[in-house]
């Protein structure tokens, strides 16, 4: 594989990190300002993952939706599988921030967690 430039998404700086694969071994060349950048560049090259955020329907809540996220980054190619589960899920108010709504969503080993508190009306 040729050298590849990766824009880091860990923080707002957006370091441009140059990486290369040598015999299936990841090699960081230059560009990151911190350790998290190195981890991101490695993961982005070998197994790209993202935190997915969305929202889930709430019954009898002060708002019709509760915002949710995956408890950890999930593989990029699983994003739409997880979204399908999210679309089919409904939850009853009250919902508390941090509450686990779906466990091991779409076999990603991540959970779907509420990021907002929704009171009952």
């Amino acid at each position: 594989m040729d050298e590849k430039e990766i824009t880091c998404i860990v923080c707002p700086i957006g370091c441009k990190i140059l990486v290369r694969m040598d015999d299936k071994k990841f090699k960081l060349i230059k560009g990151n300002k911190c350790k998290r950048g190195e981890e991101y560049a490695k993961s982005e090259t070998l197994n790209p993952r993202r935190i997915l955020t969305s929202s889930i329907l709430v019954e009898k809540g002060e708002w019709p939706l509760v915002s949710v996220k995956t408890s950890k980054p999930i593989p990029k190619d699983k994003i739409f599988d997880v979204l399908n589960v999210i679309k089919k899920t409904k939850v009853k108010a009250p919902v508390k921030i941090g509450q686990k709504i779906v466990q091991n969503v779409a076999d990603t080993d991540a959970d779907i967690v509420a990021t907002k508190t929704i009171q009952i009306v």
Partner: protein
Amino acid sequence: MIEEFFDVAVIGGGPAGLAAAVSASQNGAKNIVILDRNSWVGGILPQCIHDGFGVEETGVSMTGPEYANMYIELAKKHGVTIMSETMVLDFNKKLEITAVNKNDVYRIKTRGIVLAMGCREKTRWNVMIPGDRPSGVFTAGVAQAFINLYNIMPGKNVVILGSGDVGLIMARRLKLEGANVLGVVEILPYPSGLPRNVVQCLNDYDIPLYLNHTVTYIKGRDRLESVTIAKVDKNMNVIPGTEKEIKCDTLLLSLGLIPENELSKNAGVEIDNITGGPRVDQFYETNIPGVFACGNCLQVYDTVDALSGGAKHAGKYAAQRLKQEKTKNSEIFVKPGEGVRYVVPQRINQSGHVHFTLRVTQPGESVFLNVTSNGKKIYRKKLRFVNPANMIDFEMNVDKTLLRSNRSLEVSVHG
């Protein structure tokens, strides 16, 4: 009319107002109120359900609602009074606020006011896009509220004008919700939003980004039917013959934000024409003694982390002023020089370490930030990458000699 008294009143309960109120309490102010016209505090954060908030501040990536919750809990812990659904009508130089809610009109006497009114989105009429006036044209933030708070999809086939962060975030959000995102159109030769949002919102989903392009016509009788986009030259003039019509039912506008300062202007607060926010000194104090400004009504920040950092200082100085008013002997001005759009603070009136924030006019690599006084270099820092979308900050000591010199400081960024 009900009379109230508070030591510090914060106008606006978004992230800036919350951080300022908490910090005022941590620095000794006792009797603090936040006034907000919404039925909730947290401002725009409850609709910003994506993550990436708080990384610089706490090391942990939070979603908008989680970040807001962190400060709401702190405000509760510090006994900050929150008056929601309360609209401030005006304030004056005697530090009195008039506010109204469902119950009554309030005359609130204070010993310090922190302005934290936030900002508004630019609309179609700020950039004068020709064409019809159909439905289906929304600002990106309104579409975000529709989708994330009210469960309403604004449309199916979407074009986004402007590559600011809200526009990029909405491109991804609409895609995830099943819409067809036809492209993001940006008049500048580079994206306006943060690099990480270009990567994870556009590149991840193969959403095209049309740089050096703009929307030249909006067509549709009742509902939007199409937009025409065209290439622009380096002076941002449309190049004839490059027009292309895109069928769509929704146009989102992410054109930038305007600090909201109607209250400030009415009270006689001096406004910086470039930031659109109050001119402040290094203590975030405006020209009206006891009136401080922070958050997006001071200057539009790129991250909530940096915004809260500034707001905490504003809250701290508002609290310190309750104990002792500062003595002002001399004052010098800070001016943007070559390559710099603006610098905050605009005035310095006490010696010591000063924290500056600024924005550059164009992207660059391996450039130098210089501060000069009367043509003499007094500070120099190397910057690897600069980008108008990334706010730059630095700290510099302003000593008594410099302060008494009566000479303006000029901040420039060039190769």
